């Protein structure tokens, strides 16, 4: 009992989460985002083309109409790219000694903080396009439900697995006594297999 102290904690000397510098996600992930965007753009173009054809058959509108529509579509695509670029630049993560931070957002800066001792299980997800660039996304689940589950895309595959292993190690002593009341048996390292 001699070791026990319970001094008041000075709020100002606690580590400040808001002043950390985040690690950016992998540069190549921008390519993945562009691919995803391009797919969307192709779908958009096909839809516009179909609309064009059907409109052309029924009515006869001037060339100015089509030009303006086309300009609008291109403007929209440009906007999408711009927003995605902002989103890409804003994304960042950081692993501290005892918790994990993830920052994202376009208009709003959203920061999610998950303490290690609240993580339920972790998965590494390799998407089709991400795999082409050797990237993966790290998925972290808590008992807080969907709202606090985290998915960090665009991490180097090797790094993602290293982080996973690191977090697992941290996780196991906490939850290995089975009475800790964990929800699922997902703590076993082999249950969080890679998907796709």
């Amino acid at each position, binding site marked *: 009992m001699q070791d026990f102290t319970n001094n008041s904690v000075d709020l100002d000397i606690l580590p400040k989460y808001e002043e950390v510098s985040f690690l950016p996600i992998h540069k190549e992930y921008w390519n993945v985002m562009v691919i995803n965007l391009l797919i969307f753009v192709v779908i958009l173009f096909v839809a516009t083309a179909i609309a064009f054809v059907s409109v052309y058959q029924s009515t006869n509108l001037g060339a100015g109409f089509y030009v303006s529509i086309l300009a609008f579509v291109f403007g929209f695509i440009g906007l999408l790219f711009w927003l995605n670029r902002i989103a890409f630049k804003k994304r960042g993560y950081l692993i501290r000694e005892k918790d994990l931070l993830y920052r994202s957002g376009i208009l709003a800066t959203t920061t*999610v903080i998950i303490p290690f001792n609240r993580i339920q299980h972790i998965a590494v997800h390799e998407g089709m396009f991400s795999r082409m660039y050797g990237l993966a996304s790290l998925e972290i689940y808590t008992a807080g439900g969907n709202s*606090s589950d985290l998915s960090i895309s665009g991490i180097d595959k090797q790094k993602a697995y290293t982080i996973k292993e690191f977090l697992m190690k941290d996780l196991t002593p906490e939850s290995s006594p089975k009475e800790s009341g964990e*929800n699922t048996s997902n703590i076993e390292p082999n249950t969080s297999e890679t998907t796709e």
Partner: protein
Amino acid sequence: MFADTLQKFLRASWAPLVIMIYRMPSDALLYMVLGTIVIFLLIGVVAYLRYRNFTFFLDEDKQEFVIHSGILSKKRLSIGLDKIQQVSINQNIIQKLIGVYSLDVDTAGSGGKEVGIRAIDHNSAQILKARLLERETERSETDPTSEVPEENIKPIIKISLASLLKVGITSNYGRSLGILIAFFFTIYDNVRDFVQNEMLSEEQIEQYIVRGTMLGFMTVFFILFALTFLINLIRTVIRYFDLEVVKQRNSLLISYGLFAKKNTLLNPKKAQIVSYSQNFFQQKMNVLKMKIKQASSQEVKQDGKKNESSVIEIPGANTTERDNILQVIYDKTIEKGKTFNPNYRYIFRGIYFGLIIPIVIVLFLGFFVNEEIKTYFPFIGLYVLVIGLLIYFGFKNYRLFVHSDFIIKKRGAWDVEHQIIEPHKIQGITTKQYFWHKRSDVGHIILHTAGGDLSFRFANFSQINKQINYWLYQVETSDKHWM
């Protein structure tokens, strides 16, 4: 078991059956009857087989509760005792008639698996329940001094009919009013259509409405109001009749219900968010509504019925009873501590969505779409007054109290609600700041718990960040488990 199978069958097939009967030519009725008998026999056989194949036992070594079921495809379900959230013993009307109970085992697992035993006699149910939750209590009773033999049998709360009536009267009128208004307008429209179909002129309609029907409407309105009121009241009373909270070792046993008796055991450690709400009238009568949210996963929430079991409601408690329950759950007295106020921008948001947008829409409709709406314009003043007051009180009541052991959020304009969580039950924290709020140092935070989220908007960002760092410190250094 038979009744249960029959019920299951009927539930799945009553609609086609009704249609079949309806469409059947009369000479085929004989076949119908025969068919019904065959179906009943089949159900009987299936029920018997289901009964024969349904077994459950407690595996002492593995600490598992195992249930075997199924006729053709056998199913073996085992639940680790440590994963059991809650065991409840219920009885519906049919079960009451034959004197059996059903026992439901809830787990918090993300798969949302839930086990139930349909028919079990009361004694075995109690024993099983005790055994299933044994480990729970063993674990929590590490302190040998607390091994006091069960002397706490007297209920800590017993909700009387009077306080239940009080709550019933003073709550839910918002919803009742909504239903009523919808109803009122439907009738109004119907009458108008009817009158128009009778080829009367606009003037006559107006006269009708103004003279005769106005009075009639008022009466109908009043009667309907009284009726919904009464229905709500009866519902509350039937549902929560004779509500009792008993302390059983370290858990709370909550039982209620007039026709279908419900028994729910709550382990205080598994309570995630405890909230109580009270409006002006309820405050005067010293009654309030309590809600205890337990750990539940998203999948469980999607199913309305299961969701109910993870939220326990206690309507009609008074302040001392509330304090007693809180005392049992937290083992401490609730303290409010430091207060966080929202930024005045919180009001802007209310004004924007509650006043400006609706009024602009109504004005637009009145001027450009339908001239008739103009006659309702004088009501805008009243609307502004009511909503303005709601926004003002909503702002005044929107507070976050932070103590080292508790986080309390207060909110609501009319029904003032307090939500209480403990810092070590936080699963994660999200902060959100729009770029146009950066300069004014305003931001939103969301505290995630296993029983739902608690958000506080328009907080002073640098202050709340300091608090977040402290919460993280608490969560990361505390060895208290969140459930």
